[in-house]
């Protein structure tokens, strides 16, 4: 897996915008852990960027409340093409354990198109990295593939 990642990244260094929608923060700290020395995705050129205008990939985790949903949509619109979305964790995917809580409004893919889903509660950093690799392979053509994307 690491060799495929290294190959892709020699071609392009993906910059990531991490959105924490709120929720238990479990996924967010496993995403952050992927950047730390044990997993160290930074050596492949993957960088965390604060601004949507510089990001290639949005990595999003957490429970989509109504307010968060509006903000996520706005941020997605500010990202330049080509752009990709990695949804991490059960809450972003389906609402997870918070399904049918009155605070949870929707799934991520009801707000923005998602390219790769990483299930788990939370998924281990290895699973998140695997998701990133699948995303980069899918995007190798330059433009995001339309099949498999839910609108």
């Amino acid at each position, binding site marked *: 897996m690491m060799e495929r990642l290294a190959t892709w990244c020699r071609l392009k260094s993906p910059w990531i915008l991490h959105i924490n929608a709120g*929720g238990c923060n479990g996924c967010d700290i496993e995403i952050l852990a992927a950047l730390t020395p044990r997993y160290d995705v930074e050596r492949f050129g993957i960088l965390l960027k*604060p601004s949507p205008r510089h990001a290639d990939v949005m990595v999003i985790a957490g429970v989509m409340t109504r307010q968060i949903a509006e903000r996520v949509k706005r941020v997605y619109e500010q990202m330049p093409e080509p752009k990709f979305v990695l949804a991490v964790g059960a809450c972003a995917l389906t609402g997870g354990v918070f399904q049918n*809580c009155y605070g949870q409004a929707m799934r991520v893919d009801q707000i923005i198109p998602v390219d790769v889903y990483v299930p788990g509660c939370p998924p281990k950093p290895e699973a998140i990295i695997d998701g990133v690799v699948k995303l980069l392979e899918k995007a190798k053509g330059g433009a995001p593939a339309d099949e498999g994307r839910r609108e």
Partner: protein
Amino acid sequence: MGTADLIIGPQHPALHEPERFVLKLDGEYVVDVVPRIGYVHRGIEKAAELRTYIQDTYLVERICGICNVSHSLVYVQTVESLQGTEVPPRAAYLRAVVHELNRVHSHLLLLGVVGELFGFDTLFMYLWRDRELVMDVVESITGNRLISAFNVLGGVARDVDQSQVKEAKKAMEYLRGRMKFYKKAFAEDPTVEKRSKGVGILKPSSALDLCAVGPVIRGSGIKTDIRADDPYAAYGEIPFNVITYDTNDSWARFMVRVDEIFEAIGIIEYALDHLPEGPIRARFPRRVREGEAVGRVEAPRGELVDHIISKGGDKPYRFKCRTPTLANILAACEMIRGGQIADVPVSLSSIDPCFACEDRLAIIDVSKGERYSARLRDLMAKYGASR
């Protein structure tokens, strides 16, 4: 300084950024703070009423992923207290071990985040690398790195064998050595000193009036810790020290956590050395009897309290959970009120808030007549260097 004609400026009124705090700024000084936490409200207490006690064990763990062990522990303890069930001694000791491991990982996480806030990317990386050792031990004992699903009604889910005990103790010994380096870093580094000593003062009388908890109140010299004053699990039988610092500032609150890691390592070693023999789980009925109970644990951030009312049956009538971050919000407001905007990120981090650097503050600048939204991280970047 009128507050009526304030909201003008770059922020479009229709764009509502969700914000944790609203700060009123006059020049460099914060003149008022109001907390608002509505945008991440999930409706968990209501959801708990619609799920069984067993299902709720897994729901409450996800109130906060970082201190999930504390949430499941206080929950099962409260339901067990309602039912009048005593857990076996071996389970009580194992609960304490995993609870302390959770404390260590949580404190290391916060110290790393604070290190990064100060501009020490390397310190952040070192701390999170060493934190991985703790995650390994937790995974070995509970089966999961983070959200452990270890505490169950009546006891714990899994037992430990000698090899796991050995591995855990080896990791703790190594970590103790690393902590000596980190203690020096936080206690003696000139940048850490400059940015946290004297910053975010919380007087002991204020800490008590505002009902602050955990390292926040202990950093103002008040010696209170639920593990000592209101013991639960095996804490009544395990010797340890309650850590206080009396400088009342952000530095004190960081140092309390540093020393608590040492204490936690000691508790884990003692508990593993003194593990009683016997079962790990008592029988627990699906339907809980009528009554109510109040449970309290010392989570990494402070007092975590549950109140459960049962009218008999397999679902709770009322589930109330008060997280320690909520208890410390008034104290946080007190720390930053009257202080400089440059100190806000450090003071807010010193309460180890359950929210992220990505979270936003609304700032109403009275002197300029502007209202804007900023992330904690941006505030640090803009003002951090000025100290």
